């Protein structure tokens, strides 16, 4: 098998604090070397990366691929292709499928579908509780044995504090994070953020406290158990404060933020735009700013998309009745560069860390670095190219995005997984 030479790019490898012009040579599924003027090894395919960034493939620890069960919305194959087009070499698939990913059969099926697709890697996340019903622990040992990299009941909160405590304790056996969707269901149950916009639109609001109550609880339980809590899609300034203080105390907590939460506010719901309906909801400008600051100071560790495909006609209805969620894989990098890098919240190497190196580290995944011997999972992206979001051109099977028509800066050109080019944007 001949290698790939990525020539003339700006190589960013946060794991080794590298940010310099260099060539990257990939051979037999691994990074063979990084250096200047590597020459062209015999038979190597050459990727011209001039004026582009070469970085470890992006890793999204939070996507919904809908398979098995809702293949009309997305499949493992279409989701893995959308991921590759977005610059992601790996994604972690949440278990709220039908059937739920709470046993080795479903874990194995998702992995097999991913292998068949041969695009981005797909790591299944197992359920915390059987059927995500919040009652009986799933068999973490079996899930991990089959290839699950974390557990979560995402889509639903873990209501029982006892169950969450047990999950955190038991997950320590396997060294996996417990990822929680923080929402107090007795306080939530609305259609958007509770604030002046929900008041004007006459929609039932979800107060920030509905998230923060569960964040506070999870932090206390992580402290109690020593387990690793991973807090999904943080959306409020209060959550950022709670996490910051917990980290100062040494609690084993990691947290993610979604591009929509650092890009938009509840005002996107004006006109009852159901593509701005998601859970947790878009919050206020102060919350968006706190999320950005949390990313800047490391309180929030990673950027994850919460890619949530829905059929267009499910969104084409009354706001109250439309499902929550937006797709994010093909806009994440552009939004992150536009909203965080060009605004000087994060330097580009730090962004790569938040979208690749740190996700790999906290979920214990291969990749996230271009060190020799690391998997040949690489993204080549143009950090300066301007483009317009056109959902009809997405590889995802769904189109539900509030960013249609938005001008963004930065987009993946080539995505390489296991030494194979799985995506190359046509010139």
């Amino acid at each position: 098998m001949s290698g790939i030479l990525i020539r003339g790019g700006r190589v960013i490898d946060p794991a080794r604090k590298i940010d310099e012009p260099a060539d990257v040579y990939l051979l037999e599924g691994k990074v063979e070397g990084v250096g200047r003027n590597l020459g062209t090894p015999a038979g190597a395919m050459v990727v011209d990366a001039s004026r582009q960034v070469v970085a470890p493939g992006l890793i999204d620890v939070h996507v919904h691929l809908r398979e098995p069960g809702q293949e009309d919305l997305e499949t493992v194959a279409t989701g893995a292709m959308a991921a590759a087009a977005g610059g992601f070499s790996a994604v972690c698939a949440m278990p709220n499928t039908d059937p739920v990913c709470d046993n080795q059969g479903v874990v194995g099926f998702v992995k097999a579908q991913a292998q068949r697709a041969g695009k981005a890697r797909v790591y299944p996340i197992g359920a915390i509780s059987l059927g995500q019903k919040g009652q009986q622990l799933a068999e973490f040992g079996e899930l991990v044995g089959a290839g699950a990299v974390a557990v979560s009941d995402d889509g639903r909160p873990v209501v029982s504090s006892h169950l969450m405590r047990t999950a955190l304790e038991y997950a320590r056996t396997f060294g996996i994070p417990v990822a929680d969707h923080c929402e107090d269901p007795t306080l939530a149950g609305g259609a958007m953020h509770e604030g002046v916009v929900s008041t004007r639109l006459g929609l039932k609001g979800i107060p920030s406290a509905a998230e923060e109550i569960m964040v506070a609880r999870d932090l206390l339980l992580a402290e109690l158990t020593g387990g690793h809590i991973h807090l999904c899609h943080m959306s409020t300034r209060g959550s950022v404060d709670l996490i910051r203080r917990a980290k100062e105390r040494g609690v084993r907590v990691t947290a993610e933020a979604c591009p929509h939460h650092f890009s938009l506010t509840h005002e996107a719901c004006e006109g009852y735009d159901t593509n701005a309906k998601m859970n947790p909801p878009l919050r206020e400008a102060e919350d968006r700013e706190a999320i950005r600051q949390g990313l800047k100071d490391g309180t929030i560790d990673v950027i994850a998309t919460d890619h949530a495909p829905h059929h267009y006609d499910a969104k084409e209805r009354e706001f109250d009745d439309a499902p929550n969620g937006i797709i994010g894989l093909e806009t994440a990098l552009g939004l992150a560069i536009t909203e965080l890098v060009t605004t000087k919240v994060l330097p580009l190497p730090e962004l790569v860390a938040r979208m690749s190196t740190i996700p790999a580290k906290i979920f214990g995944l291969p990749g996230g670095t271009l060190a020799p011997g690391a998997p040949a999972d690489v993204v080549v992206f143009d950090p300066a190219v301007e483009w317009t979001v056109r959902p009809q051109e997405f590889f995802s099977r769904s189109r539900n995005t509030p960013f249609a028509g938005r001008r963004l800066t930065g987009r993946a050109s080539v995505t390489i997984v296991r030494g194979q080019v799985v995506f190359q944007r046509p010139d």
Partner: protein
Amino acid sequence: MTAGTALGKDLTGLEYLSPDQIRLILDTAEPFKEVSERPIKKVPALRGKTIVNLFFEASTRTRISFEFAEKRLSADTVNVGGQGSSVSKGETLVDTAKNLEAMRIDMVVIRHGASGAAQFLGQRIRSNVINAGDGKHEHPTQGLLDLLTLRDKFGRIAGLKVAIVGDVLHSRVARSNIWGLTKLGAEVAVCGPASLLPRNVQELGVTIIPRIEDAIQWADALNVLRLQLERMQGGFIPSLREYNRVFGVTTERLAKAPRDLVILHPGPMNRGVEIDSDVADGPHSVILPQVTNGVAVRMAVLYLLAGGSPDWASAAGKGEDH
């Protein structure tokens, strides 16, 4: 043909109207009041127009008021309810809308339980859409008839102090009143248990008066909202009895007012809960004039949205009987 009216294509809420547009509707309603006082209550202003009254939620007053307004303007009308229609067979709102459009109707009056339903419909069909109440969002014609009733009573809106009392959180009437009154220069306060006031409501330009006694001291008029009986089960208030004791508009409380208060209520009333019978039936109640004005205001809205010229409104009002 319809987009260029003085009000735009649709009437979905008073939030989206300018003060001049609101005044135009109220002024246009004046000549239409007289039509309903005639022995033969009909003018030809909307002859040949077809209007669908699409009521997904139960309604007596509003539905009948719209229907009278349409008929007195000589429009052809069809009533569609939630039950017994394709809606009860699971048809989506967008499909219902497209089917109505295909029948080349001119206007849709919609009442729906979901906030935003009228805007949703208006964005998807060419016909004019009039919001007859959408969820907890707006009920613009109710807001307009309240404005007209207050203007009748006081001769002005600017400078009036109006307290909206009760379940503001779930009330589309409250929102339309807040927009309409503040745009025309009234001072607006909301009064009710904090559990029934929406978050950040002050940012809509109103003040909060926590106690009904203080609202009565402050206000020129009280707009008393209906307390939905299910709010007790929802955990928003302890009981209807307690609500009446703490927030009820009673004769005893009104007796302490420094001036005669005008009492409005959008109906239907829960006598003995948010309002006592002797207040509702008392000399300061304008609850029945509100209903009368409802027909005139709706005639004005229909007429203006159909492209009727404000200058012709008097002429249409005085038009030949037949």
